């Protein structure tokens, strides 16, 4: 079986700085794998081990996504091969256009039976790319997945929705979006990271990117919230201040 996992490479929000004019400055930001996509990678890796399948990562991002540390990070987590489009032409895509690029990679990755996606990326958190990818490939889609077992031509999934848990059989090939609960990311060891450097990394430029359906008009820092910021190191003064305030 071929398992693919989609993950997004983005700037670390801890490194975002606010410039004097209120704009967001990403220039000092490290590239990282979006937080909940690490869970998706782990889920795919475990399913790959359980079924003896290959696990390949597919990713679409800005030119900066072609970062050797991040690529090794992905490949140190039980992933066999990486397919990445890293190009500023694919830096700010909407969910439909992202899915269209991922679909190209899914086909380039020598076919797929199961595509795992994370719950949502840290930048937009739209939770839409998985379903758009399923629509693009014309395959079934389920979200909220916490468990999956492959039985021949279907995958049996437990999906945790807001008010109900559903047990479903999803015909392969399909796209499943997992909840972070489904698998906790491993901590890769030195050996895994060294081995990752020798795994195949297919990095390509964008080609024929679809016109966006959604575009960014402006990006700015949020309005600051006014707080007193009285910080104490002495417990008695702190308790007294809280008591006076309440």
């Amino acid at each position, binding site marked *: 079986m071929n398992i693919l996992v989609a993950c997004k490479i983005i700037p670390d929000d801890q490194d975002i700085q606010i410039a004097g004019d209120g704009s967001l400055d990403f220039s000092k930001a490290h590239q990282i794998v979006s937080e909940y996509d690490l869970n998706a990678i782990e889920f795919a890796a475990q399913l790959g081990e359980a079924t003896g399948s290959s696990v390949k990562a597919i990713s679409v991002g800005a030119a900066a996504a072609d970062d050797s540390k991040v690529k090794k990070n992905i490949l140190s987590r039980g992933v066999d091969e990486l397919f990445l489009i890293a190009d500023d032409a694919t830096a700010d895509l909407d969910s439909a256009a992202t899915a269209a690029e991922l679909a190209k990679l899914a086909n380039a990755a020598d076919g797929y039976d199961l595509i795992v996606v994370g719950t949502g990326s840290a930048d937009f958190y739209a939770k839409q790319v998985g379903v758009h990818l399923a629509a693009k490939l014309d395959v079934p889609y389920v979200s909220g997945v916490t468990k999956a077992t492959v039985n021949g031509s279907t995958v049996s999934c437990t999906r945790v929705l807001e008010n109900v848990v559903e047990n479903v059989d999803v015909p392969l090939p399909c796209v499943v979006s997992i909840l972070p609960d489904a698998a906790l990311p491993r901590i890769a060891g030195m050996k895994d990271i060294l081995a990752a450097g020798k795994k195949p990394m297919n990095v390509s430029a964008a080609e024929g990117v679809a016109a966006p359906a959604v575009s960014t008009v402006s990006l700015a820092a949020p309005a600051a919230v006014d707080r007193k910021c009285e910080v104490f190191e002495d417990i008695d003064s702190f*308790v007294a201040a809280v008591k006076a305030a309440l």
Partner: protein
Amino acid sequence: MKAFVIAENEGAARELCAGARTVADSVVLCVVGAPAITGVADVCVHIDVPAGNIADDAYLSVKSAFDAQGADCIIAENALRPLSLVGRLTAALGTAAIAGATEINGTQASTMYFGGNGVRTANAEAIPAFIVGSGVFDGSAATGTDTVEELAFQAPANAVIKQGEEALPKADINLAAADAIVACGRGFSDEADLQLARDLAAKLGAEVGCSRPLAEGVDWFPKEAYIGVSGAVVSPKTYVACGISGQMQHMVGCNGSEVVIAVNKDKNAPIFKQCDYGFVGDLKEALPALTAAL
């Protein structure tokens, strides 16, 4: 303009339809796999889902409802099944939704970016579609008719087969109504220590909530208990954040609180720039001291 609202919960349907009225002349509500909701839109298109199917797979029916209604704008609830349906619908229409809209202005919407580290304004170049969370629009303003149009579920090829389902127990927690909230973060290394927060909460008449990591991975809290951009957005009089670092994803959920109190052992924790009163030290010292003094 005619708005097409996709929602499954009555509260969300009210809010979204009321919001839709502010941008459109007429409002169609599409409810899939849940009881029809009336009195909030001009018409409720209701799609019943057979026991062996999932609501997410009603997308062919939803697309035909959208086409038949001649709608030109979409607003969807931020819940998993509506998210699947709006994804399939926008894909079929060659567009994509703007998620997490906090304000809609014609074809544009403001949204959180990086969990509140930024604010993004996005423009829909094609049919505008917005995903809207709870509390953005005022549900009490919703008005509508009793008209319900039933539409048959049309299964796609390769339909997902539902084998069974089990209702989740309703969590015994009501953060929205709380006057005070004691919120616990990863600074709690031991589940038993949560009692310190419960003791303080009992003293304050507060609910106990948490940051997302304590409701996910570790199951110390139900999902309803976490506060933040992807969880509950609260504005109590008093918010006590214990062992919470103060990442934006959490803070946007409690920034509306009147007074924010923070306990954290790291003096450089970002929470200290976003609180009124802070204590640099161990929560195991601070919480009992607060409980004793108040």
